[in-house]
């Protein structure tokens, strides 16, 4: 019976039977008891109603949470999968010789694991999807440690291959020429030429040769700027000839052989060689699809035709620093790789800006950065912050083999210059100074001798009031 009907019945019974009780106290007790019944029933109904309401709400909430958890789980799985894949891809990309190794091993591994699972010969069974995932992840990451293996080791194709300063090879050619000069002198003496005159000639030639080598050796270091006259002298020295009596197509790796033009094989020895030269075999072609790929990502960097050019004269002619335009591009390429890798990741909404923040740290506010030549309006604050942090660290770092660390004041001055040129964010730069972050960092990571005074106020004045610094 429904509670409200029961209540009505009790109310009726109370009316009906109370009149039969004549003793007042008994009657009162009876009425009280009936009222208590009614009150309790009403309360019970109330409790049930509220409880149902609460339960419904709680169940709905639970369902909602469950859906959220499931959604998050899926997103997380996707993110992890992608992370694993970009690591594998990065390893594959690092060494052209291993190609798509990391991508292909999982295919074989999974198929083989499935087959083993089905076969009765093995005490092995893939019981669920999770187990398959486990094997797949392991296969994708089986070479992940290679990320720290030096490329020249991974790619070493012949025993004598290494990262090599070719000045030693060129110096050996100077040695050869030096001996050729001595031989020539001896021959001339044997032919009855005046010994004193020949010795004088030899001495002069040898002195010139020494000077030429010194010039080339100094040029190789790349610390000084190069002028037209330098290049002319380089060319003159390079054009000097010597005789090669040995076949230079032997003992090479497959990759090297493929770069040698047909006519260079089986040459009649000895061969006249230039002292320093640019050859066809020095050039490594860039795959055409690479260029297309970069355009797809909206990169606006000029891509050199060759992947590398190892030409000797070509390299010695580098105007500034030690990198060819091909190598310079390789360095810049890291920003493109960062973007390519990160844009592949299905970051959840709250992480969706990671690719732009990370990948735009070489962009400049004035649009002269790379790889997308973004401008102020496209560069969010965190990306601008990355740029300042990246440059400041690089300038002050004392652990780079190719350069000396800058003093604190020099580093700040360079940053200020970049602000003046419209490359870095002025307000962030000033904040970097006035907040004292630059100094805190310096105290923590710079060598004591690097830390000198920085006139923060002068920079603030200059950039806020237009007064001159220094």
């Amino acid at each position, binding site marked *: 019976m429904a509670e409200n009907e029961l209540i009505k019945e009790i109310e009726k019974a109370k009316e009906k039977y109370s009149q039969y009780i004549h003793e007042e106290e008994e009657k009162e007790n009876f009425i009280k008891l009936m009222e208590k019944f009614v009150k309790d029933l009403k309360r019970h109904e109330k409790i*049930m109603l509220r*409880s149902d309401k609460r339960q419904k709400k709680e169940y709905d909430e639970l369902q909602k949470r469950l859906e959220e958890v499931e959604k998050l789980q899926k997103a997380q799985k996707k993110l992890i999968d992608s992370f694993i894949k970009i690591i594998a891809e990065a390893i594959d990309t690092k060494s052209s010789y291993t190609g798509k190794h990391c991508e292909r091993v999982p295919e074989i591994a999974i198929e083989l694991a499935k087959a083993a699972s089905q076969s009765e010969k093995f005490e092995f069974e893939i019981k669920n999807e999770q187990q398959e995932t486990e094997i797949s992840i392991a296969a994708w990451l089986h070479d992940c440690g290679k990320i720290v293996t030096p490329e020249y080791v991974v790619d070493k194709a012949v025993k004598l291959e290494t990262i090599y300063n070719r000045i030693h090879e060129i110096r050996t050619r100077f040695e050869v020429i030096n001996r050729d000069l001595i031989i020539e002198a001896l021959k001339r003496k044997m032919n009855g030429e005046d010994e004193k005159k020949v010795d004088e000639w030899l001495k002069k030639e040898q002195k010139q040769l020494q000077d030429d080598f010194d010039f080339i050796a100094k040029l190789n270091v790349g610390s000084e700027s190069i002028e037209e006259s330098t290049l002319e002298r380089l060319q003159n020295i390079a054009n000097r000839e010597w005789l090669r009596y040995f076949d230079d197509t032997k003992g090479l790796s497959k990759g090297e052989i493929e770069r040698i033009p047909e006519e260079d094989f089986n040459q009649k020895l000895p061969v006249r060689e230039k002292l320093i030269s640019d050859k066809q075999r020095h050039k490594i072609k860039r795959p055409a699809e690479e260029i297309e790929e970069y355009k797809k990502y909206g990169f606006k960097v000029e891509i050199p035709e060759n992947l590398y050019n190892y030409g000797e004269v070509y390299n010695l002619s580098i105007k500034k620093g030690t990198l060819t335009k091909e190598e310079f591009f390789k360095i810049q390429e890291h920003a493109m790789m960062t973007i390519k890798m990160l844009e592949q990741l299905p970051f959840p909404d709250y992480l969706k800006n990671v690719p732009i923040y990370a990948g735009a740290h070489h962009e400049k506010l004035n649009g002269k950065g790379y790889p997308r030549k973004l401008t102020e309006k496209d560069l969010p604050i965190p990306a601008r912050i990355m740029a300042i942090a990246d440059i400041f660290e690089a300038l002050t770092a004392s652990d780079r083999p190719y350069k000396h660390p800058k003093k604190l004041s020099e580093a700040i001055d360079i940053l200020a210059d970049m602000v003046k040129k419209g490359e870095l964010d002025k307000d962030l730069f000033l904040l970097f100074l006035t907040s004292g972050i630059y100094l805190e960092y310096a105290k923590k990571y710079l060598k004591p001798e690097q830390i000198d005074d920085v006139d923060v106020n002068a920079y603030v004045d200059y950039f806020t009031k237009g007064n001159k610094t220094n």
Partner: protein
Amino acid sequence: MENLYIPATKYTPEISLNAEKGIIEIRGKSYPENTFDFYEPVLKWIEEYFNCCAKDNTVVNFEIIYFNSSSSKVLFDLFDILQEAKEKNNITINWIYDEENESAEEAGEDFKEDFPELNINLIKKSEEE
């Protein structure tokens, strides 16, 4: 009279009944397997407290995160006892709830409405506390 303390379990709240200080506290979750058995000594203690040994001021703190419907019935009974005791005693009743716990907040509001004479204080606790 002796104090009664029942530590919290996975299904039952921490119960602390302190006759010396005049503090009655119920904190935590309440969905015991047998609710009436669980609360019987508690209700008994409280009745006895008001019968013999109530302090001048009694403070009752409820901080119930979650409760089932039989616990709800027990709470009604408890409020009945408090209502009766209120005539002779000075009782402060606090219904404490977490700001994120809507159910607990609503339950407090319901009890306040059902027992207007008790002047139940609804106290919102924020996360940081």
